[in-house]
């Protein structure tokens, strides 16, 4: 009876893991591969193609697109613990994904999903528990967007993509500091809360 109970428990645990793990049929690559993939994905430039496609490929428009970003910058990210860093990346990517949920950004949208996939796999490589992958973020209600194709829409999307580029640039820089194995990263660990508090302090001071 005891053995039967244990077997059933094991079966239930397995099923639970399979249910929890999104990759039911596919397996994540190894950490090193994931790290390499994320680094390469961070280099992807969507802004140039967008500017070209939308006719925004002029110097002053580039400046117009450049603005403040709501996403964490390098200084913020580099101090985060790996898991927190990865979770931050995942949340940020999902946020951008929500903002660019339009057919014209379908390719970028899928690409962001791929980044999120690799971040998730990286978290699995760092954490023993399969629940490390952040749950899909609830869709936030976005502010009304301009008409698709309008200049204001283009500017707004341009800013988002620009922010994304800067964010991913920061992510890439952080990942460059990561070692070939998960335990090689030697840095001062701070909690996300401290990071956020420090960031708020900077804002208030500035």
């Amino acid at each position: 009876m005891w053995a039967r109970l244990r077997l059933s428990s094991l079966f239930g645990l397995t099923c639970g893991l399979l249910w929890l793990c999104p990759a039911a049929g596919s397996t994540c690559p190894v950490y090193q591969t994931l790290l390499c993939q994320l680094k390469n994905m961070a280099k992807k430039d969507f802004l140039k193609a967008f500017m070209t496609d939308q006719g925004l490929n002029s110097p002053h428009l580039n400046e117009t697109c450049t603005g403040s970003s709501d996403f964490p910058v390098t200084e913020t990210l580099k101090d985060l613990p790996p898991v927190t860093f990865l979770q931050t990346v995942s949340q940020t990517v999902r946020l951008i994904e929500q903002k660019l949920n339009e057919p014209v950004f379908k390719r970028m949208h899928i690409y962001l999903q791929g980044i999120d996939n690799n971040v998730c796999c990286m978290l699995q490589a760092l954490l023993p528990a399969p629940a490390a992958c952040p749950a899909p973020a609830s869709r936030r209600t976005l502010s009304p967007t301009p008409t698709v194709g309008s200049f204001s829409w283009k500017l707004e999307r341009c800013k988002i993509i620009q922010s994304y580029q800067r964010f991913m640039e920061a992510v890439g820089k952080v990942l460059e500091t990561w070692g070939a194995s998960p335990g090689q990263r030697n840095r001062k660990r701070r909690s996300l809360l401290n990071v956020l508090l420090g960031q708020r302090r900077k804002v208030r001071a500035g």
Partner: protein
Amino acid sequence: MNLCKMLALWTWIVQALFIFLTIDSVGGGLLKPCGHIIPESPVVAPNTTFTAICVLDEECLSEHHLNANQIFWKIKDTRVPKEQYTILNRTAASVTLEDVSSLGSPLTCNILLYGQIEQNIYGIQIRVGWAPEKPKNLSCIVNGQSNMKCQWDPGKETHLDTTYVLKSEWPTRQLTDCIPPPNVNNSCTVDMVVVYVNMDVWVVATNVLGNVSSDRINFDPIDIVQLLPPYNVTVSNSKEISSILKVSWANPVDKPFEGLKYNIRYRTKDASDWTLIPPEDTASTRDSFTVQYLKPFTEYVFSIRCMNREGRGFWSNWSAESSGVTYEAKPSNAPSFWYEIDPSQGHGYRLVHLKWKTLPRSEANGRILDYEVTLRGGKTSHFSRLINDTKMTLNITNDPYVASLKARNIVGSSDPSTLTIPGHDFKAAHPITNLKAFPKDNELWVQWTPPNEPVNKYIVEWCVFSDNLPCTPDWQQEGSATKLTYLRDLMESKCYLITVIPVYDDGPGSPQSVKAYLKQAPPSRGPFVRTKKVGKNEAVLVWEHLPIDDQNGFIRNYTIFYRTSSGNETAVHVNSSHTEYTLSPLTSDTLYMVRMAAYTDEGGKDGPEFTFTTPKFAQGEIEAIVVPVCLAFLLTTLLGVLLCFNKLDLIKKHIWPNVPDPSKSHIAQWSPHTPTRHNLHPKDQMYPEGNFTDTDVSVVEIEANEKKHLPEDLKSLDLFKKEKITTEGHSSGIGGSSCMSSSRPSISSNDESESGQNTSSTVQYSTVVHSGYRHQVPSVQVFSRSESTQPLLDSEERPEDLQIVENGGSGDGASPRQQYFKQNCNQDEISPDLPHFERSKQVSSVNEEDFVRLTQQQMSDQRSQSSGSGPMKDFEDISAADNFGASNDGQIQRFETIGLEAATDEGMPKSYLPQTVRQGGYVPQ
């Protein structure tokens, strides 16, 4: 008006509705089936068992009083055997089919109404197909940045509607399925694939018989990226540097990565092999590349491909080819330069045909504008001319000249090619040695050993060696270090006469030639063989060598095939240098068919067949048979004739009766005390010619001076002896002679006619039987009275003669009668040179008489013995006689001698036949 129209319309609608409802109610009742089949639309795999159930409606059962027992099944028009039915209940019956695929469709459920009316209840269409096979060999490739095309092997045809879905997923999420376009079951293209994210891909095949998934493949799409090739490839040259070309291109824009590396390949336009620029030189992203060390004025073709600089993924396809030409440079080599001299010119001049080859493009380094020909020597110290052609004819003196040639293009001139044209009296020398020509790798190679003297260059000339065409030589120039080269643009199966001429500072050397084929072939025809001489057991075949144009190669050997009409064919191999062969041994009197094949290294060709018949006899064989036979016949005839002559007396003896000669009768011989006769000398005592003509004469001489004591019983014979002596001068035996042709009565015996002529009185002779008639030896010597009318002996008639004989004897004191005899019969006086033995005959007549006396008796016994040696003596006598004369007289004399000899040998006369007379007379006896 409108109202009417409205009413008409409504009327029409109502009528149409009525008809529709009527048809619907009636049709529904008529077409309603009485049952159905389960399953309705079956799909069955081949070689599987299929069961169908026919269920009858209760309404029909009650209406028509039916039950399931009345159900029967049909496939098309063929009823299924009842053994395959199963009655499930009152309303249902099933049928089980073992292999539906071989039976076809449709399958119908039927019922027999009222026991005899077949009524179809329901029918189904059975579809036969396979479940999908597991897709195999799944592979994917990312084209450009986002599109990923996956391919797989769907397996065998299912014959059913089968869907293939390419599924993919990331570790964290399922991706959108890829559905192949219609009628495509082995590939699908996924849009917007994300690189740097590992994904699983697999194929699911589904049809009504099931579904199956392929094996999964997991990859990062970046590892299967194949970019589009670079485009807009251009090639440009540089006027400053004729050995470089710059290649430019545009990189593919739609790529998931930035870093690229390239492969750049190039080749000359006419070449097929590419040269690849070292990859390390093109391992970074770029859009142009300068290629160095190229040949001037040469067109090059370029092609480029690219891939991820990191080496992940695949090389793109090669770009479209683009070509460019390097700029010109001055000719790198001097043209090949040679000449011919036509000596048939005026006194002191000759025509020189200068000729040269156009430079190959690789050496011309540009477009050749013209050639500069310079001539030095002779009366014209310097001569220069620009010419566009590749030949020039000059009329020069017999002095030596030096000609030089330059090729010019837009950049410059080539180095000069110099040639010494020797003087008229120049004698070429120093040839090359060991000249050989052989085919290899579809080229005709020429090899030689250089002479010891330094050579400037070699000229190789060649032409087709033909019986019909003149030798029109082509030529090429080789460098001084060349010992082996090959000839270009040759034809197969042609004999080439190749000449190599070394060229020295002072002029050309002695040429050497060799014949060769680029590729041999069997001869075009075989030799025409014929016979030169046909013998009984052999035949001499002759043929002529094939013409050069028909040989197609070096004739290595001939093969002669010959056979009889019924025999096996025999082959004889003959050396190619021969034109004649003797076939032997052959069978006489036989028809032979012979043909001949000539062989080169590549095979042979038969010539026409030639037939001949061997004779039955060899030449001279008939003559060898006929001549000896004729000679033998002639010899036999001659021997026969000689034998006849030799045995004439024997023949006569058998043919004519041997009448005893009365003249031979001797009383003394009858006495048993008759003295022994002297032996007759065999040869040297032959009677001289003309002494006697009668072979049957026996001469008994009794010398008068010689006092012999005769036995008493023989004394009585003295008289007779005298008579004999006397007779000697008058009688010569049978046939008579000139001696006996005298008017005086002869004592020749038994010549009755003569006796009849000479005497009219009838004298009775006593018959002397000496040795018996016909070899009958008388036991007692008897005297009998002869009834012959022949005249008596002289001695008997004239006793005085006997007295004279007795007194005078023989010798000088011969009686006139004897003299007369000698004058008429003996030719001693006429021919004093007669042989000795002839004269000795006369002298030894007494000895012969003795011989007659002493051997008279013995000879009768020895007659047969002596006759055996007679013929040999006769031959000797003939030979001896031949030595003395060849006249007719001589022949006659020989016959007489033979007859005499025969008479002396046998010791007695045996017959009396007419005889030829030496003096030409003939005296009948």
